[in-house]
């Protein structure tokens, strides 16, 4: 899914948060967004996910305007993981269940992803009782399980331990390759950005300061 932003302006009250003349996210690659705190990264990614529609300017997805059916193909992992008040297994299986997949398929896929991200042992624990890092992993699992066209990640590994980070990065790369998933990831870990991303955007004060093909 490629995304084109034109003349995007976003205000909170009178404060201008985003002011992007032109920006493209290319299909099927991993794009990183970096920039200081308060730059507007989360605001941007929320808009891209169709969760915030109060902005000026135009955004197209594969040349089309956003429409409600796109919610099925786009997912966002929030900076603050918000998990559902149920067991980890049910939480991760939720997006499949509302897509009315067969029970056996749901089970298989859910267990697979739980194992892949190393949280299978947590499957019967309440989502609301997880440690910070565990919650982030569950929230990532719940997003990739959909095999969406576009995954938006807002600092998805900020509370993850070093060993797990490599696993998660590997999984993301796999998804990107295997399902041609377009991935946009916000991170403060520059090294991670370099490890993971094909392109990196530097955002500051709501403006794109630098947009470089990597290397």
């Amino acid at each position, binding site marked *: 899914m490629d995304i084109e932003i034109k003349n995007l302006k976003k205000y909170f009250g009178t404060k201008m948060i985003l002011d992007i003349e032109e920006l493209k996210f290319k299909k099927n690659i991993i794009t990183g967004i970096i920039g200081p705190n308060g730059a507007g990264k989360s605001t941007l990614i929320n808009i891209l996910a169709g969760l915030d529609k109060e902005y000026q300017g135009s955004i197209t997805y594969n040349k089309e305007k956003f429409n409600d059916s796109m919610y099925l193909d786009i997912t966002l992992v929030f900076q603050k993981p918000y998990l559902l008040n149920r067991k980890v297994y049910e939480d991760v299986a*939720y*997006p499949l269940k509302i897509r009315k997949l067969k029970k056996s398929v749901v089970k298989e896929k859910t267990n697979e992803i739980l194992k892949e991200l190393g949280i299978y042992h947590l499957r019967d624990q309440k989502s609301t009782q997880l440690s910070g890092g565990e919650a982030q992993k569950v929230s990532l699992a719940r997003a990739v399980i959909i095999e969406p066209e576009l995954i938006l990640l807002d600092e998805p590994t900020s509370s993850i331990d070093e060993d797990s980070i490599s696993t998660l990065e590997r999984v993301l790369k796999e998804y990107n390759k295997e399902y041609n998933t377009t991935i946009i990831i916000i991170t403060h870990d520059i090294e991670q950005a370099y490890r993971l991303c094909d392109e990196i955007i530097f955002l500051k004060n709501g403006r794109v300061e630098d947009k470089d093909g990597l290397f």
Partner: protein
Amino acid sequence: MDYILQGLKEGILLLFKLDKELYRIIFLSVAVSSTATALSSFLAIPIGVYLGIKRFRLKGLFSRILYTFMSIPSVVVGLLVAISLSRRGPLGSLQLLYTPTAMIIAQTILVFPLALGLVYNLSKNRGKEIEKIGLTLGARRFDVIILIVRELKIYLFINVITVFSRAISEVGAVMIVGGNIKGHTRVITTSIAMFNSMGSYSRAIALGLVLLLISFLINSIIYSYNKED
């Protein structure tokens, strides 16, 4: 003060006397008020959640009007329902006035604004966030509503309790549309009002105790569906 002690004593005796009339009254009270609570909650929960997360013009005004209707006096609701169900009223041919069905209708209408107002307010404050999560996971309109209900379950619990408490304790509506007819439409609160006007104070207090006991049992049942740590 004697009345109070006397009422306590009488209330306990009353329950053990296995008086058929009393048990009929208790049964009808519970049946009418829990049906009204269930019906109004059943309607109010999805509608309230939906309106709570929806953005629309004059939402602030809508909120205030809705909260206002939470104060509608039961006598007025009773009167309006009685007029509609009256033999010469628009629904007169159904012959519902002075029946338990009429009481359920009146109580459902009476508590509906309360049920709706409480759910709506909850959803207005908490629903948007949950809606966002739902949308990112691919939930459609209806899924979102269900998701919000499930996520806010422990908060909705107290709403249902509040609605039930309003229904079981009110007297104005059931008195007018039911008529407090012995053996047919007499419930605990109409009996209390009657005993009060007859000067049988301790009996009125005794029935008040019975009502509280019944509430306790019903609350305990609702409570057990809402386990806590």
